């Protein structure tokens, strides 16, 4: 009887083991968001929120299967305070703690990519566009979903130079400004007659009035300010308070809420500011962008700029950079699935093989030839009026784009 009982138990155990053969293990993966939460909170929050929204959706859908494991994702915020040293320390810590990927604003990447690379971890930049930051051959684990400085600077040159403007190129002395200086040198290098002056702005010195005066005396008929948002605001104040209504062009930080907040007492001074950035909507139209935006605003509320239109409507910021972070997490998830595992640099290689539909309906992905997720020809121009911006009409791409809602409850 004992023998029979033992056999029954053994058969039952085998049966249970057989049933369990299809069961997948569960594990949690951390995506580290390395961004300047304490210094430019708009940028940091946009990246972290976009990433978190994608993570929530993936987890709600059951997680990310890879091989015999289903992964739940989580986001860890790490403040780089715009300090390269801190940014590198954050990446070191994230790697030690087993992060599967780094979503990075871009500060300190010249050093931090090696730490991530040595661990076989992808580092994806979702804000800074510096030319040397991404290099398929030299930095195979670095990717980017954000407009490149090269694309922004060339598109600005293509827009400004044919208009016969004499441009003063003003860059600040931050990493961001110096990367811009390099990009602008290339973009404007073939048309030296279009450049009235090249001037560096001290980002911590406060009033840039002497540099703005220098640009004016050099005969500039336009200013191109490649700087962090506070410096852009200071340049506008310096020019307008001197009665100089010169056209001002900027890269994406021109649309940072901080510029408008700092000019709230002189709201007309921002009118006419033209900035270049990646187009938010797809060629198919704005429907998918609006759907993404609705999800974002349900999760986090609209990002209030802190100013109102002249009609008293609260101005809100479209979640442009959140979209890039959201897309990045979805591309990462697709790569984890494709790789069938997360070890030995598999995710890095898989990132070159996958493409997903982005939040706005455009395809997002990379290949062996390019680790850039936003193409230069998707850079458009928008101009401010009454604290909101709209695409310009005198550029072929921009003129086809819809006006994005920027007031609470508005259209």
């Amino acid at each position, binding site marked *: 009887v004992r023998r029979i009982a033992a056999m029954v138990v053994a058969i039952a155990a085998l049966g249970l083991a057989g049933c369990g053969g299809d069961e997948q293990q569960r594990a949690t993966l951390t995506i580290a968001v390395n961004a300047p939460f304490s210094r430019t909170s708009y940028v940091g929050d946009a990246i972290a929120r976009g990433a978190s929204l994608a993570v929530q959706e993936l987890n709600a859908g059951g997680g990310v299967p890879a091989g015999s494991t289903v992964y739940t994702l989580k986001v860890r915020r790490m403040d780089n305070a715009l300090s390269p040293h801190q940014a590198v320390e954050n990446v070191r810590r994230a790697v030690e703690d087993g992060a599967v990927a780094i979503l990075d604003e871009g500060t300190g990447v010249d050093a931090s990519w090696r730490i991530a690379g040595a661990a076989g971890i992808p580092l994806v930049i979702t804000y800074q566009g510096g030319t040397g930051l991404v290099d398929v051959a030299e930095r195979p684990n670095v990717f980017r979903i954000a407009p490149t400085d090269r694309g922004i600077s*060339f598109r600005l040159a*293509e827009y*400004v130079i*044919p208009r016969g403007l004499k441009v003063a190129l003003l860059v600040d002395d931050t990493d961001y400004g110096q990367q811009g200086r390099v990009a602008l040198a290339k973009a404007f290098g073939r048309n030296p007659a279009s450049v009235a002056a090249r001037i560096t702005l001290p980002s911590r010195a406060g009033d840039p009035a002497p540099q703005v005066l220098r640009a004016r005396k050099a005969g500039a008929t336009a200013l191109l300010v490649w700087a962090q948002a506070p410096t852009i605001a200071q340049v506008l104040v310096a020019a307008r308070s001197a009665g100089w209504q010169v056209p001002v062009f900027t890269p994406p930080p021109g649309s940072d809420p901080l510029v408008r907040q700092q000019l709230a007492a002189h709201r007309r001074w921002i009118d006419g500011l033209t900035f270049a950035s990646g187009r938010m909507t797809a060629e198919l*139209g704005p429907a998918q962008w609006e759907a993404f935006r609705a999800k974002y605003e349900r999760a986090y509320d609209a990002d209030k700029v802190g100013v109102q239109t002249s009609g008293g409507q609260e101005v809100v910021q479209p979640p442009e950079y959140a979209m890039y972070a959201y897309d990045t997490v979805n591309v990462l998830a697709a790569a984890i699935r494709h790789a069938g595992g997360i070890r030995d640099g598999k995710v890095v290689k898989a990132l070159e093989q996958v493409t997903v539909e982005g939040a706005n309906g455009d395809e997002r992905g990379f290949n062996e030839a390019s680790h850039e997720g936003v*193409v*230069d020809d998707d850079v458009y121009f928008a101009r401010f009026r009454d604290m909101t911006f709209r695409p310009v009409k005198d550029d072929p791409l921009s003129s086809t784009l819809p006006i994005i809602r920027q007031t609470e409850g508005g259209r």
Partner: protein
Amino acid sequence: MIRHALILGILVAAFTAGCGGKEGEEGEREAATKACGAAPAAMSGEPTFPDGFPTPSEVTYTAQKESGPSTIVEGYRDGDIDDAFDGYKTAFDDAGYDVTKDEHEEVDAEVNFAGGGSDGQVKLVQECEGRTSVSITIRPE
């Protein structure tokens, strides 16, 4: 008389704008199924391309202009957008250029390239049945 002509012009412009409801992709889709009008005239001479840049024999070039540091070449190709898209991708491969990104929607497509000391984009739009417009933006490295 001039005033009447001006008012008439404004009214015609307003009417035309009002008729432009089918914009963007929808308008392009509809146009792609319609018969083509006369093809634009070929440009005199040949456009200037970077070293080794593919020049498919099916493409007729109609204009070239400088836009700041960049060069824009316009043209068209007889045939639908699928052939044009595949043709350029193959041609870039054969020419030793990298295709850095490509995207093909219903009636428009882009092939982004790098090579020959340049990068840029070939944008294709099927503008009518049997003709695809080609717009090439070339940026020096």
